[in-house]
């Protein structure tokens, strides 16, 4: 489950810092809504190992789960990555836009 604490970003970066976890996200990106058994069959790893990685991804909010009958399905939740993008990447875009705006006003002043 996603934690609402301020260390949200830390959890996302830590979760993404592991190749197996990125591999799990890639598998969900290809086909979403999978069971643990399905995900386990694509990795050379024990069921317990896959469970542990999925748990880290869930805690970071990168994987959302839903029950469907007796099965627990795992879904890729890209929203935390979008939020990091909004917070960090947009800043650069803003700066570029404001730099251009400043350049425009300077050029117009001297014209």
């Amino acid at each position, binding site marked *: 489950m996603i934690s609402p604490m301020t260390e949200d970003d830390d959890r996302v970066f830590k979760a993404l810092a592991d190749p197996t976890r990125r591999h799990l996200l890639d598998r969900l*990106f290809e086909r979403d809504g999978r069971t643990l058994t399905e995900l386990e069959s694509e990795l050379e790893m024990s069921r317990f190992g896959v469970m542990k990685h999925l748990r880290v991804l869930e805690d970071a909010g990168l994987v959302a789960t839903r029950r469907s009958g007796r099965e627990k399905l795992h879904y890729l939740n890209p*929203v935390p990555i979008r939020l990091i993008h909004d917070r960090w990447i947009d800043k650069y875009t803003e700066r570029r836009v404001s730099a251009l705006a400043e350049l425009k006003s300077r050029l117009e002043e001297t014209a």
Partner: protein
Amino acid sequence: MSTITSTALATQVYQVFIKATPEAVWDAITRPEFTARYYHGARITITRDHYDSRGPQGEVWGEDSVLEFDPPRRLVHAWRSLYDPEMADEEASRVTWEIEPRESGYCLLTVVHDRLDQSPKTAASVSGTGWMMVLSGLKTLVETGEPLVDFAATS
């Protein structure tokens, strides 16, 4: 770096934590003065019996039935993509909004868009950046009072 292609799915699940009351999140989802500021400029009004989405010029972007209306916790409505002629011909799908209060004044908002089996174009359109943009915009608006993108200025 390899590119991975995604099969847009019949069921999609998105979640986001929002530091706000369930009532504030509910209002942001159901009232046009809020949705116009984060939902691609759409003015969406959701009442107990009707879902209505309008574009900036009043054009119909969505008109659907409301299946469950339990403020401020749970909302289920049908979805047809009337903003796009090709997608509009597809079968109606279903959107479920769940708002769960959590500790420290946060809510967990979950959006499930399902029954997309017969609507591949809609499924592809709302996946990827579709719901992701809407939910990150909603969070930013509710938490800061400011939209991520100023749709009024760009439209």
